[in-house]
């Protein structure tokens, strides 16, 4: 599965970048994530609960930030394994300043889902993946803009 999208953020590119690099912000935004534990430079371990409505599975995941180019963007690599199978997702995030205090965030992603969920979830997998990823960025926007308001 793959796709792309973009969101407008009411914050400066520096502020957005700072937030996107903050593991606490990422933990807040990644679905069902309790906390990110640093295991090596730019790489974290986490427990995720991924799914929709009652259909949720627990995954032991690693989240890595690669190709980091401050403050323009990076690639987020997520690999999760759990009873329902595994998830491999890569998202490339790109930031461009639009105006004073406004930044455009564009993203593209590829995701591969394997195991039980892939074998029985074909009817909804593509749509749900798209939904979860756009949810992540909606949460990112909320995190960034709330912070900005209180700043």
């Amino acid at each position, binding site marked *: 599965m793959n796709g792309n999208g973009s969101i407008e953020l009411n914050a400066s590119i520096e502020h957005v970048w700072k937030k996107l690099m903050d593991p606490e912000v990422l933990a807040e935004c990644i679905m069902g994530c309790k906390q990110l534990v640093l295991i090596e430079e730019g790489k974290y371990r986490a427990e995720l609960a991924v*799914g*929709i*409505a*009652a*259909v*949720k*599975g627990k995954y032991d995941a690693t989240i890595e930030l690669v190709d980091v180019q401050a403050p323009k963007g990076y690639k987020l690599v997520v690999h999760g394994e759990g*009873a*329902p199978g595994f998830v491999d997702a890569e998202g490339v995030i790109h930031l461009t300043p639009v105006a004073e205090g406004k930044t455009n965030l564009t993203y593209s992603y590829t995701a591969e889902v394997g195991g*039980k*969920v892939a074998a*029985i979830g*074909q*009817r*909804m*997998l*593509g*749509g*749900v993946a*798209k*939904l979860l990823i756009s949810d992540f960025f909606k949460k990112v926007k909320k995190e960034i803009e709330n912070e900005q308001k209180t700043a």
Partner: protein
Amino acid sequence: MKPASFDYCRPATVEEAFQLLAEYGDEGKLIAGGQSLVPILNMRLSSPKCLIDINELQDLNYIRYEDGWIKMGALTRQRDVEKSALIQEKCPLLSEAVPFIGHMQTRNRGTIGGSLVHADPTAELPLSFLALNGRAVIQSAEESREVDLSEFFITYLTTDIMPGELLTEVKFPVDSVPKGYSFQEYSRRHGDFALVAAACILDTDSEGRITTIRLTMGGVDAVPILVEEAVDVLIGEKLTETLLEEAGRIVSAHVDPEGDLHASREYRLHLARVFAKKAIQTAYHRAIGKGSAS
């Protein structure tokens, strides 16, 4: 395919059900007909700590006509809707839609409430109730509220129901129910999930000009979609081949289906157009008294 272990409770009253919902929070899951939930449990796609069986709550099992509304309790079995003479008389759209739900055996157990709360994007009941301008009656221990179905379905398998709440009734107005109706579904086999579905109700004046029309499409998005733009072009007009074609084209332009193993995105868009047209055309023929066109 055995489920993870769970506690099991069977409340005798709605109040008891609320207590259990409060106690278990999001670890509690209601079970009524179980036709969607039990496979999900067996495949371990979901492992709630407690199953709250509401089959005892027979006060929620009814089909009534009251003050110009049809009201159905959430626990009404789909098969009872299928066999209901009242429904056949007052909203034949439902009578036409229900036989497409699974198979007779599953309809003996499945409930209308369960179908609505499960919110499968291809399900027949959400689609039909939306076409009928339905409302959901939702109760919690503290209060009762109503939600228009156009706001009830949020996304895949997700509705407006909050923790601690119970869908108790679905209702829709029937006194001014249009004469024309049609439910169309395309699937690979009898009883399968729809690839695309369309529900249409409409009414005409004595000249055959369309006065009211509602068209909903299923299987083309995360939730059932009310396609208003497509029907706007038809208001006040007699249905011609050209207008029908235009309506179909607009439907195609306003839905956003995913592709999957059985149907690519392009094919679904094409089917959406084909079946939207079939639904509108059949509903129109019924409204102007020509009977079923298909």
